[in-house]
């Protein structure tokens, strides 16, 4: 009886260890899937001071929007855009998904790293602009089983506006190489009369 109990205990321990190992591996895998993020907090341009808490929530929501966009385009699901995108950004992404559906193509975007800078925080806190150098994988999957994967590095400008629960992406657009990604300079009024 005692022997059976000890065997059961050993089996339980093995099972627990195995589950723990799987969990650990799963956690590692999910951690490996998360992009690395670097935020440059220097010199936010604009008339308004950016609180740390606001900055943290803007960056969190922006990064989640990338994950959401990757899934939406990878699964051709417009509904996944609802929580994070609004206005022109949402319309354009929805159009892209419609085009993909029409062509029976899925394009997955997996962001690998972000190098973020907060470029502008507007008066009254109505909008925030981010500059981001993103490294991401693009995976084109065609219905005829063609499969193309490419790692890209591109610079993005994002405009976020506050909604009831989170910051939503209103514009997300790549910055062409021809336009430098210079330090955003404080604006200057070139003409004024009163």
């Amino acid at each position: 009886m005692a022997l059976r109990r000890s065997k059961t205990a050993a089996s339980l321990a093995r099972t627990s260890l195995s589950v723990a190992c799987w969990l650990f591996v799963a956690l590692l895998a999910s951690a490996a899937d998360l992009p690395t993020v670097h935020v440059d907090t220097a010199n936010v341009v604009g008339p308004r001071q950016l609180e740390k808490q606001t900055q943290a929530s803007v960056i969190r929501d922006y990064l989640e929007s990338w994950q959401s966009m990757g899934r939406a385009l990878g699964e051709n699901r417009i509904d996944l855009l609802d929580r994070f995108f609004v206005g022109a950004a949402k319309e354009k992404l929805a159009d892209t998904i419609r085009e993909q559906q029409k062509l029976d193509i899925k394009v997955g975007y997996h962001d690998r790293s972000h190098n973020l800078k907060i470029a502008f925080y507007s008066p009254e806190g109505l909008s925030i602009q981010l500059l981001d150098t993103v490294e991401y994988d693009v995976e084109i999957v065609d219905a005829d089983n063609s499969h193309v994967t490419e790692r890209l590095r591109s610079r993005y400008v994002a405009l976020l506006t506050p909604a009831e629960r989170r910051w939503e992406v209103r514009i997300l657009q790549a910055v062409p190489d021809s336009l430098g990604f210079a330090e955003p300079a404080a604006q200057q009024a070139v003409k004024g009369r009163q």
Partner: protein
Amino acid sequence: MRRALFSVVCLVVLAVVALPSAQDRGSLAVSKSVEAGKPFSISTSGSGKAVLYLVGPQVLRREVELGKTVELSAGEVHRAGHYVAALVGSGVNAKGEFDVTPARQPASLIFLAKPSRLAVGQRQGISGVVFVLDGFKNLILEPLPVSFELVAPSGGAQARSVTTNYGVAWVKMDSATRAGTVQFDASSGSATAKRVIQQVPGEPCRLKMSARPMGERIVLQTEPVRDCNGNPVPDGTIVTFTENYGGRMATVDVPLKRGVAQAEMPAYQGAVISAATGVVLGNEIRWH
């Protein structure tokens, strides 16, 4: 020696056989940058058929014959962003990257103006932020001048011109001294946007009342109550009349009607009557 010669000949034969097949594999060439909505072409090399994918903010697929040029017509690719061009076919796997840049002409503005209602004479009280878009709703990232103008009811205007930085321009302006509707305009090229801001009078600036007897009562009436810029303070603003007599105090709260407040209080010899509204104290009247 013979063996070495044989090896060289084999290598040459292999190279000759392999070279055309490498060429046949196909390649593509595309400009690094094309303007949104403009026609452009992608040249391919090799032979045979393949599928060309353009993937980015827009997605296109074309069956192509290698060695021919693929033409993309005006308006076909109009969403600005970073694109991958991939040529896929039997034994073909060529890729290229390019940017679609926004059109140069502003077509519309996202104009965020705040607040929609404020008091007159507020320094830097009105803010405006503009994002400049092209005809395809792409954010124009090249620096562009944006003009802001605040036209007061009196006709006077404040104007600023600001250059965009990554598509955004912002300004802070003062509210005018006259109450009324103010038009806040923003423009860049032919793109314009208008907002209306209601400027309301500020707090009362001074308060003066007069008194006249009416039987056993005193009729108290203020002069028209104005803010420090001479704008009439809105009706409904409360004026408090206070009468002190023999250690007793009576107060009456009266809303402004047609710019003035009027109240009746008991007429006591030696009573001291005062009026106040907000943080402004009016004159005192000693009743004899």
